[in-house]
């Protein structure tokens, strides 16, 4: 029998990721909407709360609630091309490890979130923070939380995209799963955004919780993704 020809996972990963990033750069279907949503929400919070300065838990809550709901816009669109243009079939026909699709999609979402935050977190600081001192250490929290959102979002999006009610189903399933991540992200951010400058009370503990969450959902995605692609 002819030996099965498996494409190296690194090549397949780079191919799918490059395709997604090229499509997004060309069509700008996700990122501008995510950024616009986040900035608009900051404006609403600013006038709704009637505050020009936020700190502590309130600042962390505003930041993470906004980022999470902006991320949902990207999550909802993550597999739309695969569903509507036959990408799922094309990828299932290829001699590749199907977990590569999970890794590539999660990385694409991670990239969208990183770009989103590069734009909107400075705007958040401009709107609500007295200084930018917290932004440096906040990067670690953002990275770990983004990884968790990317892993969980990719997993849920791949399931929800097959439903006609995907725009509803995705958030309904994703939000409860992401609650622990939000608790840890706001817990880690709260001392950083405290009035009078960043503090580090239980900062390491919350980062450890975020890391554990990331690890669980990355492993879960890797383990079950192959089954999710079956008919």
């Amino acid at each position, binding site marked *: *029998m*002819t030996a*099965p*020809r*498996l*494409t*190296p996972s690194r*090549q*397949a990963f*780079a*191919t*799918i990721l490059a*395709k997604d990033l*090229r*499509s997004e750069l*060309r*069509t700008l279907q996700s990122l501008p909407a995510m950024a616009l949503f986040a900035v608009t929400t900051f404006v609403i919070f600013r006038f709704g709360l009637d505050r020009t300065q936020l700190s502590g838990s309130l600042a962390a809550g505003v930041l993470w609630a906004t980022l999470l709901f902006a991320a949902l816009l990207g999550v909802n669109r993550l597999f739309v*091309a695969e569903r509507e*243009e*036959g*990408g799922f*079939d*094309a*990828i*299932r*026909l*290829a*001699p*590749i490890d199907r977990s590569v699709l999970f890794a590539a999609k999660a990385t694409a979402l991670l990239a969208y979130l990183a770009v989103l935050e590069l734009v909107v977190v400075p705007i958040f600081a401009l709107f609500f923070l007295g200084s930018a001192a917290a932004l440096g250490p906040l990067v670690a929290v953002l990275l770990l939380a983004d990884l968790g959102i990317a892993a969980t979002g990719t997993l849920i999006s791949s399931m929800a995209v097959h439903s006609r009610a995907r725009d509803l189903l995705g958030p309904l399933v994703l939000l409860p799963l992401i609650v622990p991540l939000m608790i840890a992200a706001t817990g880690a951010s709260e001392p950083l955004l405290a009035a009078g400058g960043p503090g580090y009370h239980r900062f390491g503990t919350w980062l450890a919780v975020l890391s554990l969450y990331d690890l669980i959902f990355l492993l879960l995605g890797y383990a079950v993704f192959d089954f999710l692609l*079956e*008919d």
Partner: protein
Amino acid sequence: MTAAQATGEPALRLAGLRRDYGDRTVLDGIGLELGHGETLLVLGPNGAGKTTLLRILATLLRPSGGEVWAFGCALPDEAWKLRGRVGLLGHEPLLYRDLSGRENLRFHAHLHGLRGEAAEQRIAGLLAAVGMERRAEQRVAELSAGMRQRLAICRCVLHEPELLLLDEPDSNLDAEGRELARALIGPGEGRTRVVVSHDPERFEAEAQRVLRLEAGGKAVAA
């Protein structure tokens, strides 16, 4: 020659194949054998299970019962061994609308392990073979249905599959397109093919075996 050919195993062997969607049986008790390099023509009315049969052979659907062997691989358990050796031309072109024809073919080439100059040469050759060189940089969304079908044919044979699964391969093609496509997906050159069509006259002369399905997925004659 593959080991399956050397041992005299048929390219395809189906025995008692059944596929259900919930309570509805779409294929029921299909059995046949197809030799290497032969063409099987699958005929039948809408809803008879023709496309379902192709998707099972492409490893995209699991059979609900029976046995399916393709090129010595038992499906679905050994589907991973068969992927990459199958070319599927279905109702959908499996092309991304926001990428150009060449970018789409490059994407599929890379997924199938082709890279670099070898991939570029293969793509250029196929685009020329279907008369699409001048349209290769256009986005798929801007192409006509016939042009998309030509690209889909390129995608289908890009990795030189041993088994071609063709669902209405002439759809949307004009006379010139049909003639060009014939060189890539027509009979000959040892291609094993399963062709689904509503037009028996078009393909019957090319087929060594004919499978007629009736509504409910039963084989009338094989």
